[in-house]
């Protein structure tokens, strides 16, 4: 199917063009258009997955057109086992977050316009195979996110928006210089990500180390890796629910995806050199994130810090530099998107009713909102890594991979694991159990809220019992990646 990936990437933008034509007063048709286009994207991605050849680590659905010959820039797209799951995740979370945008009542037309542009940027980032194109999509995510937080956010939205913007921008300009440096250090000069990975051995070890750090800086801010994580709690707390879902579900994965798509295959020598520091950072993220989450009184901030913690698993998996670790990292990326996306939706559900996120204001909700209690318990258990649910598999694989390479770090990381378990049990206890804290009149989750949760619950359960569902797509790509080292 020629231009299938192009169609997937630009479908949301087409939706934006259509939304622009609808008068701002017709909120209902604007919402429907956005949902329709995101459904179409998801359907297209499912078709892509069904036609995906699972028995090769090579790029599929390749599109390659010369864009600017003078500078060797191409328009190259492709999908492989590493990106497929993330593209699916983006499309799924994109649709669910659009469905969950009912709480947005201010400037609805502009909201969905920006939202659709954001989706194009996200999909493009995961599908671009030319470094300049990758950078363009990477940056194209920035401004929509700046608007989404800055206009539709909470009381400190402007501060959070600026902070998010400049943290990410600082990282990405360093990456831009890195991109040019990579271009000039491979012969023949190329921005093509497949070719650079193939000829990475030509880059001298020292240069690889420097370039690794340049790209890592950009990705570390996005992941976020401690100590570059401070934008995340601010952004999450201020962002409206659907934007938080996108932020945690998809945006953070841009960073870890970059690590696996660029840092490891382009600079294998650098990756080997920095594997140990990376593993330490992973453990720090894991432990620090979990403990920091404990210290919060804001429900959303707790989940935000638990995201930092979960990203620690992904970093550990990448630092392991083996098949198990990479599989774990990729699976954890997918699972985290599903589970934490769901957690933020659940925070949103209670915030819509209580108009506060202070943990002390909740309590005893299990008796008032039984359905909510079920979903929150389910997702918390998934989040803390209960065997049988998807979170466990990714975390287990990532830690197992780490254990092969750095047993001591894997052992220390267990502290974070315990802290995470405690964290989510405390969340369940404080929110659901105990005496109802005064306001017992909250309505339980409505049909829309439940319908948004159901696919996430289903995925958590299915992947938990049958992880091959996701893993089968990535096996060959991961093997190919390890083969480069």
């Amino acid at each position, binding site marked *: 199917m020629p231009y299938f990936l192009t169609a997937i990437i630009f479908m949301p933008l087409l939706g934006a063009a259509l939304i622009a034509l609808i008068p701002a007063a017709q909120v209902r048709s604007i919402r429907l258009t956005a949902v329709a286009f995101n459904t179409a994207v998801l359907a297209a991605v499912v078709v892509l997955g069904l036609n995906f050849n699972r028995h090769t680590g090579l790029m599929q659905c390749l599109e390659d057109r010369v864009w*600017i*010959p*003078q*500078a060797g820039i191409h328009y190259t797209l492709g999908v492989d086992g590493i990106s497929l799951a993330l593209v699916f995740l983006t499309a799924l979370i994109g649709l669910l977050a659009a469905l969950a945008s009912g709480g947005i009542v201010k*400037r609805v037309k*502009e909201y969905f316009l920006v939202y659709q542009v954001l989706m194009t940027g996200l999909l493009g980032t995961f599908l671009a195979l030319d470094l*300049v194109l990758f*950078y*363009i*999509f990477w*940056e*194209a995510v*920035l*401004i929509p996110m*700046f*608007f989404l937080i*800055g*206009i539709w956010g909470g009381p400190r*939205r*402007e501060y959070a*928006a600026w902070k998010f*913007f*400049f943290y990410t*921008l*600082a990282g990405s*300009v*360093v990456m*831009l*210089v890195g991109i*040019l*440096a990579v271009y*000039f250090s491979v012969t023949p000069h190329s921005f093509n990500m497949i070719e650079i990975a193939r000829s990475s051995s030509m880059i001298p070890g020292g240069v690889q180390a420097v370039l690794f750090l340049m790209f890592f800086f950009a990705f570390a801010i996005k992941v976020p890796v401690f100590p570059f994580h401070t934008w995340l709690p601010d952004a999450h707390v201020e962002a409206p629910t659907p934007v938080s879902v996108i932020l945690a579900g998809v945006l953070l994965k841009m960073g870890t995806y970059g690590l696996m798509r660029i840092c490891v295959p382009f600079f294998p020598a650098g990756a080997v050199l920095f594997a140990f520091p990376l593993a330490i950072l992973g453990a720090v993220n894991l432990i620090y994130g979990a403990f920091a989450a404990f210290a919060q009184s804001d429900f959303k901030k707790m989940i935000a810090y638990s995201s930092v913690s979960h990203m620690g698993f992904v970093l550990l998996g990448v630092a392991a530099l083996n098949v198990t670790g990479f599989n774990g990292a990729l699976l954890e990326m997918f699972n985290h998107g599903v589970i934490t996306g769901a957690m933020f939706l659940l925070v949103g559900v209670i915030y819509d009713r209580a108009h506060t996120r202070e943990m002390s204001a909740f309590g005893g909700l299990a008796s008032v909102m039984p359905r909510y209690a079920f979903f929150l318990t389910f997702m918390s258990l998934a989040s803390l890594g209960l065997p049988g649910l998807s979170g466990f598999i990714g975390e287990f694989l990532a830690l197992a991979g780490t254990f092969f390479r750095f047993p001591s770090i894997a052992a220390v990381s267990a502290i974070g694991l315990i802290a995470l378990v405690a964290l989510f049990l405390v969340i369940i206890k404080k929110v659901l159990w105990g005496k109802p804290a005064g306001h017992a009149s909250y309505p339980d989750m409505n049909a829309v809220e439940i319908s948004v949760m159901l696919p996430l619950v289903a995925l958590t359960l299915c992947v938990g019992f049958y992880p091959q569902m996701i893993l089968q797509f990535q096996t060959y790509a991961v093997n190919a990646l390890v083969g480069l080292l």
Partner: protein
Amino acid sequence: MTNSFHFVSAELVLALGAFVILMAAVFGMERRTLAFVALSALILAIFRLPSTLPLGQSVLGGMVVNDIFGYGMRLFILLTVVMVVLMSMAYAWPQDEDMGEFYFFILIATVALDLAACAGNLAMVYLAVETLSIISYVLAGYFKKDLYSTEAGVKYFLFGALATALMLYGITLVYGLYGTLDMAHIGARIAGGDVQGPALVVAAVLIMAGLAFKASLVPFHMWVADVYEGAPWPVAAFLSVTSKALGFILLVRIFFSNAVVMAPFWGCVAPVIAILTMTIGNMAAFHQNSVKRMLAFSSVAQAGYIFAAMALGQVGLTAAFFYIAVYAFMNMGAFAAAAFLSPVNAQLEAYRGLGRRAPVMAFLFSVFLLSLAGLPPLAGFLAKFFVIWTAVEARDYILAGAVVLNSVIGFFYYLKVIKAMYFDEQAAVHDPRISWQGYLLVGGCVWGVVFLAIHPQAVLDILALMFV
């Protein structure tokens, strides 16, 4: 002689148009009608340009050269002036300052610009630059009853007189050294080894000072903010795009044909000027509360990026002129949109909440600002990308790093305006009314910003012919 006549036929059309306008203005024809006369003259001139072909013949006794670079630049100048005229048609002029002579000055300035772009002789350079300068002083102070505008005119005159005097002094030095003002002869003698030591460097520095003034390079940028602020919006746009471009065009004409002698001098001074220009421009723009002043300093910073590419020597010319082409669209668009959104009050507060009052124009203004900031995928990003690309290729990592860091700073103040339009609550009560000329102009500019991002080939191919 026929050749010469054909060569200047575009300029003759403009001069004729200018005098028609002057006469008609005397007899009280209103500005709107005169604008159409000016527009027709410009469009006619564009269609007269091909009569210059074939290229390569010597014309006007060697005062001008008929080459592809000059041809392209004349087209560029004519197109940007068309934009200025369109902008002046859509711009809400104050009732009591609404005078038709404006278009007379604009057309005569265009003649001077055209001839300067093709100059083959330093005397022609001086004549054309001086004509342009004098007209620019008048245009900057065009609002007689407005103190700021008068101040702008006087300030521009004082700085400008100094700069052109320096340039004239440089030119006389060159004449004393070589006994000719013909640039081809001088270039050939320098290339042949006839280098007149320190005197030539002094002459070069003096000439460069005059051009740096036009291009608003540090330290000749001081006039920019005050003059732009006081000048009518269309004049500010004219100064920031067309007049600034002329500075760079003449730098190429005078210094790049004699690249041999300029090499040591250029290599150590130009990068410093480039870095200073972008940094000082950005730093100053950062603190402005007036959108007009902010855009003025932003145009200084942008000149720094352009000059950064030129500082790399011949290899950087393609990047520099691609940047100028993109800059023309995005800067003209930004000035136009800013002018239409709030014609009188250029303070940042006046732009608050315009994202809802004038959604289309505010959106386009944001596009121009983001392009100026260098956000992908807009053309402004590609322009900066080529500059950085060329710098890295030339292994000038300091220059590349300076451009990168400066573009980060740039985001702060460009976003500040966008923030005011979209985040902040409504402050102003005016509903901007924008005529079709305004939408035509801004639409054309946004087309340029998007088209050059998708298909930069269109300009790069032409530039490849100019700078082989």
